[in-house]
């Protein structure tokens, strides 16, 4: 009984951490390039809605996933144009995107599906598959392969990001425009172009995270289904000091806290015989972020030029 509980806790952690990892690594590309990305929440919602709607019409989760990446990219581009081209305040513009995706999916699903904010159910066999479904492994391997393909890919993306960031010319440029755009510019790097790429990449990855929520973990889009996961991803990014592997570990920690909340509901009791209030476990990621930002647990230093638009003339 005990081992079943721990095993299910493990899988539950993986499931809940997956969308966080995608969104946080997305945020990493944007923020390491120097553009604050408060819009992760909205971009995830864009991906989640698009994935569910496209999968419903096209009957293919892969089409849905691709469309989600495209939608994320498109609206991240909108954010990038506002912030980079027109020098909008990045936090304000990001908030605009977040509010847009409280409204837009609801209006579209109202018109397309005559619902009040959710898409129709996608049949089970059209959801993003688990590794065991994809490889049709035998029962004896089920226990190890019963994770979503998207979770496995998340691991791959973290490794890839680590490599790209620290071992490729593009990664060097990305970090340099985020740390010191003047110096990067003087060295011949096209600062704003790199920033556009960073922000659009963040949309693509956050879109995947959203798609996983709607056509991986569940089977439809519901109103505001991210429920703050975009902000938790942002918190994980800060907790992880804007580094890929640390950020992933932070996501796993926050996912674990979430999994614990679900498992403890109605099961665990305080010594006084009362339920453990879930609200206090829900607070963990947010409290941790504040504590980390204040510098109590090591220093978490943001990229040097984060939030500062680059103006060649000035």
């Amino acid at each position, binding site marked *: 009984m005990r081992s079943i509980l721990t095993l299910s806790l493990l899988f539950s952690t993986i499931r809940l951490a997956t969308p966080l990892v995608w969104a946080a690594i997305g945020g990493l590309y944007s923020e390491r390039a120097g553009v604050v990305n408060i819009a992760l929440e909205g971009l995830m919602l864009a991906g989640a809605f698009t994935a569910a709607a496209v999968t419903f019409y096209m009957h293919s989760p892969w089409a849905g996933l691709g469309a989600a990446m495209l939608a994320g990219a498109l609206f991240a581009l909108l954010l990038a144009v506002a912030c980079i081209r027109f020098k909008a*305040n990045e936090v304000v513009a990001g908030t605009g995107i977040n509010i847009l995706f*409280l409204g837009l999916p609801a209006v579209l699903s109202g018109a397309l599906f005559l619902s009040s904010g959710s898409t129709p159910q996608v049949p089970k066999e059209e959801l993003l598959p688990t590794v065991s479904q994809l490889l049709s492994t035998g029962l004896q391997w089920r226990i190890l392969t019963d994770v979503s393909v998207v979770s496995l890919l998340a691991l791959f993306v973290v490794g890839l990001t680590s490599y790209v960031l620290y071992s490729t010319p593009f990664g060097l440029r990305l970090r340099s425009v985020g740390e010191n755009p003047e110096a990067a510019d003087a060295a011949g790097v096209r600062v704003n172009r790199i920033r556009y790429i960073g922000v659009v990449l963040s949309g693509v990855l956050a879109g995947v995270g959203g798609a996983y929520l709607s056509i991986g973990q569940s089977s439809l889009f519901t109103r505001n289904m991210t429920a703050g996961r975009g902000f938790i991803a942002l918190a994980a990014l800060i907790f992880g000091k804007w580094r890929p592997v640390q950020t992933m570990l932070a996501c796993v920690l926050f996912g674990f806290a979430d999994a614990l909340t679900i498992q403890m509901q109605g099961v665990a009791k305080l010594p006084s015989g009362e339920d453990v209030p879930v609200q206090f476990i829900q607070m963990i990621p947010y409290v941790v972020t504040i504590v980390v930002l204040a510098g109590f647990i090591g220093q978490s230093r943001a990229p040097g030029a984060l*939030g500062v638009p680059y103006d060649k003339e000035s």
Partner: protein
Amino acid sequence: MTFLRGLLFPLIAVLCAFAVGALVVLFIGDSPVETYRLLLGSAFSWPDGIGYTLFFATPLIFTGLAVAVALRGGLLNIGAEGQLYVAAFATAWVGIKLAGLPAVLLVPLCCLAAIGAGAVWGAIPGLLKARFGSHEVINTIMLNFIAVALVGYLTQYHYRIPGDPIMESAPIGDSAHIARLGRFVPGLPERIPVNVAFLFALVACWLVYVLLWKTKWGYEIRATGQNPAAAEYGGVSVRKEIVLTMAISGALAGMVGINEVLGYRHRYYDGFSDNYGFTGIAVALLGRNHPLGVIAAALLFAVLQRGGVPVDAFTHLVSKDIVLILQALVILFVAAEAMFRGPINRFGFLRAAGSGQPAAGSKI
């Protein structure tokens, strides 16, 4: 002329937002004309339309002012949502605990609870910034979630009437109720919930104007917002200003609790806020961080919110969520108003209209 310049960009931003909104309505196959007629038309009928519009405007004036004061001080308060939740709960808490007191004592105490709780919750990110240099944007976002969880916990475990399936507190004492405007205004029925808190909101606007432009405190807040280094050199303690500004901002957001708890539901109702804190950002930006602008912008968003109901009911395909889209578009267009500056400067007659925006270079 300066006044006209100040009006121009917000006006263009709203028109652009409505134009894009019309495209969305066209895209889903409904009539933009009909949608906008319902959206804007239903707000001006007497007494229901106007009464409800003023009721919806009340919290938005408070949160708009909150964001505006912070922006004047160079701070971006994304945390009005959390501040108003904590404050509303505190209001109800005092109203429940001291229910026996007479109205002359209880109402002021409840109001103080709203203002005080909002100020404390707002001052936390201020203190964190002043003491540790951690950015207020991230901290206010985190504190929003913490606030919601905290008051959710208190409601669920401690202040709910046993057996009540709804997440709401016990009712506050009768003497804590504040009057609905219908009691004084002939022709306005008392069933319409616009209440004395609306008058408080107008007073708050006037007070913020006096504070910011007629007092030394306000001068120091604005000086800090314009150029912290110069302010510090001029003898202003920037750290103190950061905490003070955030506390004032939080107090203003907290006054939403007066409208909600004392004037409307007479109890704490979990999840009552219809994104007031975030709409406050749109209100402040559109109102150029000026109290008069805040009132105008709050009224506009209240009209839209009121109009969302008939849009839901009487169009084929458009839902009231179109209001959220318009709000988001207004924020985006106001934030990116540099895009209008080029074409307008070509005409030359409105050069260099001052921007009411937060400095884009606020480092995180």
